[in-house]
């Protein structure tokens, strides 16, 4: 599995060379955009990491986990990932900040860290996408879009715990 990232990078470069793309210039352009994106979400990350660290150091996480864990445990979902799961449909950068705080507290290779990763990779900022796409053409009645999208989010939540347990023990 450790070869996936380098191999993917090599495929991109080879295909770029075949198609005669100015590879390094394009790389610089993309990297610049990447920095810009990160720069734009930096305040969100700062604000949310600060807030979540208050939750942890003030003892509020334990209180919340105790309240939420019976529900989460019923579906085999780690309580530490619940805040991220709740924020995910609303805010992408917020969910990224909470994902990072799960990594920091439990480690990226812990069960909670893996479930949080799988959930981050298999869900989207649902409400943002629905509002943006329909709003852009003035649609007011979205019919059953939200029902389908919320069902997808819940499915991703349950499946992230199930598949992590199945494949990564």
């Amino acid at each position: 599995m450790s070869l996936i990232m380098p191999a993917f990078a090599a495929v991109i470069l080879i295909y770029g060379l075949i198609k005669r793309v100015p590879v390094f210039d394009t790389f610089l352009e993309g990297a610049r955009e990447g920095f810009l994106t990160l720069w734009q979400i930096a305040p969100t990350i700062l604000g949310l990491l600060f807030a979540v660290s208050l939750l942890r150091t003030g003892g509020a996480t334990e209180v919340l986990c105790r309240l939420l864990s019976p529900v989460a445990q019923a579906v085999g979902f780690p309580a530490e990932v619940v805040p991220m799961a709740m924020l995910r449909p609303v805010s992408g950068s917020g969910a990224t900040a909470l994902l990072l705080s799960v990594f920091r507290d439990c480690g990226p290779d812990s069960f909670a860290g893996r479930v949080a990763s799988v959930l981050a990779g298999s869900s989207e900022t649902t409400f943002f996408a629905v509002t943006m796409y329909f709003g852009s053409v003035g649609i007011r009645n979205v019919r059953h879009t939200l029902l389908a999208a919320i069902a997808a989010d819940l499915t991703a939540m349950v499946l992230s715990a199930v598949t992590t347990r199945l494949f990564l023990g």
Partner: protein
Amino acid sequence: MLNFIWCFIVIFSVICSIFTGKADDLSKAFTDSTADAMTLLITLAGIIGLWSGLMKIAERSGLNALLAKLFAPLLHRLFPRLDREGAAFEAITMNISANLLGLGNTATPLGLRAMKELHALHGGEEASDEMVLFVVMNTASLQLMPTTLAALRQSSGSAAPFEILVPVWLSSAGALAVALTIAVTGNRLRERKRRRL
């Protein structure tokens, strides 16, 4: 939304710390957490910059258009009423393949164009069957190579940043299947009702 959530987290934590007697730790977190956030951002900058650069090459070399061509037959089955040569269908295939490649910045403008073309075919203030399907597909995560996610894992010290790949695929596929089933069922129910009238 975040206005409320953020205030709630901070205020709730401060109140909790008074009851749990951890007010000292909490006030220390004011400096520690912000310093941590900055360290993290700097670590992230490198790996995110790297993948953004690589994915830009993928985009420029036409990997996106290649994938769009591959997925056109499959997407035609989901959108049978759209003209295969039409602008709406083209924008949809390009948007979906940009999503598959994880090119968020490319996918969004293509998606907005697809909505505009779909709206031109249908009009009104009510979503058409195709719009529901298309937006639902965009609310499920379709990404084949979650490079940013792997980068986040790697910079947090993961021993195997891509080990989550198969679970991510299965979980996304499951979520997409549920979303599409509900979307298609909803469209069919509406069709049946219309025929009866």
